[in-house]
C-alpha cells in the first residue's frame, strides 16, 4: 500500500502529522519553541526532547533507544541556534503496527527488530516539524533496507516479508538522507559485509532522494523526498485557497 500522510490533524499542538506506510501508523506532534526547564536549558541553542510512545504499554528500553537515535538525528537538521534557551518537544505515538509485529508476545516467542519502526517515526517527526514551521536546515527522508542471506537487497520490505524470510534476512539497515543527498543516519543490525552495506546505502539513497536531472529511471515508484513535497503542496494549496477563490 502506498504511504499516506496528513499534515496538522491536531489542534492543540503547534505542529502535527500522521503517517502510515507498510502497516505502521504513527501520529506525531511538535510543540515549540516553548519554555524549557532550567535543568534542560542550553545557553545557545534549543533543547530537543523526543518522546516515542508504543502502541500498547508504556515505553521501555526499546523506546528509549529509538528516542536517542531520533533525537540525535533531529538535532542536526533543526536549526537549534535560532531559538536559544527554548525547548522543542517532539512526541511520536505509534497507533498501529503490522499484524506480524503486534502479535509478538502472544507466546510465539519471536522478537521483532526495533529497526522497521524507525523510518516511519523519522518521517512522521519530519512532517510534524514541517507542520510546526520549525526552522530546519534540510528535509529528511528515511527508508528501511533488508539484505537477505542470498545477498539480495530489498528496499522498504513489509513486515510480512521480513517474517516470512526471517531465517533468510541476514541484516537490516535504516538510512536517512537530506535534500542534498547527504547521509544523516545509518543504523544497521545483523551480519553483513562492507560491500553489501555500500550497495544497500546506494539503493536507499535512490529511494529517498530526487533522481539527478535527466535520469528519470522509474516513474512508478515515488521517492521519499517527492512524497514529502506532495504532502506539503497539498497543505499550502489548501491554506492559500483564498488567493485564487472568487
Amino acid at each position, binding site marked *: 500500500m502506498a504511504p499516506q500522510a496528513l499534515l496538522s490533524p491536531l489542534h492543540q499542538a503547534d505542529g502535527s502529522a500522521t503517517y502510515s506506510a507498510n502497516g505502521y501508523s504513527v501520529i506525531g506532534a511538535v510543540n515549540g519553541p*516553548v519554555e524549557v*526547564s532550567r535543568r534542560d536549558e542550553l545557553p545557545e541553542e534549543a533543547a530537543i526532547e523526543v518522546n516515542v*510512545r508504543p502502541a500498547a504499554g508504556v515505553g521501555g528500553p526499546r523506546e528509549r533507544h529509538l528516542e536517542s537515535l531520533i533525537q540525535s538525528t533531529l538535532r542536526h537538521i533543526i536549526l537549534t541556534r535560532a531559538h536559544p534557551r527554548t525547548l522543542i518537544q517532539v512526541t511520536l505515538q505509534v497507533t498501529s503496527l503490522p*499484524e506480524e509485529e*503486534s502479535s509478538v508476545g502472544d507466546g510465539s516467542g519471536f522478537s521483532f527488530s526495533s529497526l522497521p519502526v524507525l523510518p516511519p517515526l523519522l518521517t512522521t517527526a519530519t512532517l510534524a516539524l514541517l507542520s510546526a514551521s520549525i526552522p530546519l536546515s534540510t528535509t529528511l527522508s528515511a527508508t528501511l533496507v533488508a539484505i537477505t542471506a542470498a545477498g539480495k537487497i530489498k528496499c522498504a520490505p513489509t513486515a510480512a516479508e521480513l517474517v516470512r524470510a526471517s531465517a533468510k534476512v541476514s541484516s537490516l539497515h535504516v538510512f536517512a538522507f537530506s535534500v542534498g543527498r547527504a547521509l544523516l543516519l545509518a543504523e544497521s543490525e545483523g551480519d553483513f559485509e562492507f560491500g553489501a552495506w555500500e550497495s544497500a546505502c546506494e539503493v536507499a539513497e535512490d529511494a529517498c532522494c530526487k533522481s539527478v536531472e535527466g535520469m528519470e529511471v522509474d516513474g512508478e515508484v515515488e521517492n521519499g523526498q517527492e512524497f514529502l513535497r506532495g504532502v506539503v503542496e497539498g497543505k499550502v494549496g489548501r491554506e492559500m485557497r483564498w488567493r485564487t477563490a472568487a
Partner: protein
Amino acid sequence: MPRAAEISVNEREFILQGLKENIRLDGRPFDAFRSLELNFGDEHGVADVQLGKTRVIARVSAEVTAPFVDRKFDGIFNISTEFSPMASPAFEIGRPTEAENILSRILEKAIRRSGALDTESLCIIAGLKCFSLRADLHVLDHDGGLIDASCIAVIAALQHFRRPDVAVEGENATIFSIREREPIPLSILHHPICVTFSYYNAGGIMLVDANLAEEQVREGEVVITMNRHGEVCQIAKYGGVSVDALALLNCTSVALEKVKDITKFIQRRLEEDAKKRDVGGLIAELSAENAR
C-alpha cells in the same frame, strides 16, 4: 517548568455572561454533546474517538500470564492512562497531573469496578494461565471532555477487540494465532458510559460536554456513569461549590438520555465496521465452520 495556560479575565467574563443569556461559545444547547466520531483501526481493539476537537485513542491488547494468586479464576484487566506532551506541553511523562489522576480513577470505578468486563471468561487454566488484558489510552488532542471521550473509547475498543482462541487439554493450553482460528470477542456484561456535567451558579446552570474554555471557568463538575438500562455505576463530584440534590437527580435523567444515544451510536459504528471487514461473507463462513 512549562506553566499551564490560564484563561484571561475577558474570556472568563464573556463565557459566564453568555451562559447567563443561554448562549454557549459554539452555539450548542446546554445539554448537547459536540459532534462525536468513532473510527476503528485495521487491527481489532483500536478505537479512535473524536469529540469536537478532543481526540483520544484506546487500544486493547492481550497477553497470556499467570493469574494473581488470590484470584485464581479471574483474568487480569488494567486500564492505563498516561498523558503525553502531545495534547499539551503541560503534560509531562512520569509526572501525572491532577487531571490524569482523576481520569484514571474515574475509569477505574466506571469500567473496572462496575464489572463491565467478565474477567472470569479470561481465565484459561485456573491458577496457572489467564489472559491479561490492558487498555492503553492515548490522549492526542485536549479540548475538554476527556473523561467522556476516554470512556467511550475504552468501551468501544473492548467491544471491538477479539482475543485469540484457546484449546485446553489437561494442563496444556494451546493458543491459536489469528491465522489459525477466528479470534473471539470478549464477554462484556454491560456498557457503562460517562457523562460529565460542568456547573455554574451553584448548580443553577448545568452544561453537558464542556469544552476546555468552559471547563476552565466552571465552579465544579459532576461525573455520572451509567449504562443504557439506567443503572448508575458511579457519581463523582470534584471540588467546587455544593450542588442541590434535586439538580443532581435531574442530571441523572439527562445522563440516561445521553448514554442511550451514545450506546446506540457505538453499536451502529461497530456494525458498520463488521460489515466492512466481512468482505464477501468469507469470515462468516469460516466462523460457521469453526463453531463446535
